[in-house]
């Protein structure tokens, strides 16, 4: 019985590693979408803020559960910054700069995590 559990634990840990690789790939795409959201915010589209928040929330919860602690914490800080903004309004330029800095920090952290896991660099854009 204990052997069966150990086998299941080993299989679960191996699958977590696979999910981690998948998470890195997906997060790259989501960070690109967040960047596009920042551009839409600058153009006055307030709805982009809740989209950025949606991805930050997912990154915070899933990232930390998969062992991406620093990345998850950075995403949680971005989510908290968005939660502190008045709903339905485009944040001022100062807040937009902070949002962009958070997204940049997430990109750097994800690149470092990908290196550490041997997941390779992001493919070139275009």
């Amino acid at each position, binding site marked *: 019985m204990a052997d*069966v*559990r150990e086998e*299941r*634990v080993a*299989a*679960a840990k191996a*699958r*977590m590693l696979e*999910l981690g690789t*998948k*998470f890195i790939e997906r997060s790259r795409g989501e960070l690109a979408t967040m960047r596009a959201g920042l551009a839409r915010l600058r153009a006055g589209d307030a709805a982009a803020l809740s989209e950025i928040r*949606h991805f930050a*929330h*997912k990154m*915070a*919860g*899933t*990232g*930390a*559960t*998969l062992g991406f602690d620093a990345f*998850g914490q950075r995403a*949680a800080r971005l989510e908290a910054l968005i939660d502190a903004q008045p709903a339905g309004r485009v944040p001022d330029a100062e807040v937009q700069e902070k949002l962009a800095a958070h997204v940049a920090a997430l990109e750097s952290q994800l690149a470092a995590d990908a290196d550490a896991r041997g997941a390779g660099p992001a493919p070139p854009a275009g």
Partner: protein
Amino acid sequence: MSAPDLRSLLYVDDDADIREIVHMSLTLDGEMSVHLSDGGERALLKMRVERPDLVMLDVMMPGMDGPTLLARMRADADLKHIPVIFMTAKVNPQEVKRFTDLSAIGVIAKPFDPMALGTQVKAMWKAHHG
């Protein structure tokens, strides 16, 4: 009175990776059936079909969030008796009180330790029946 065995559970979350991790975590001991749903009306339908001993709900989901799902369960004669545990990234005393006031038997913080989740859930189940 000892707690009845926890034999089946439904976990509801819109995040497919988290659903898979929760499933792996809760089936490590091979003691319970773990059903999964991505939320909304599909979750309520699955509860009616599977009749789980316990439901675990993510709080923040698009469309119908966890507290709304719980309210729908409590208004449904077939589902109102099923104990509920919430999973959330925002675990502070006010939020925990809000969820227990809604009749949740426990709140588990995200991120969670996949190797310890089963123990946490069983402890809440036992405390509920204590």
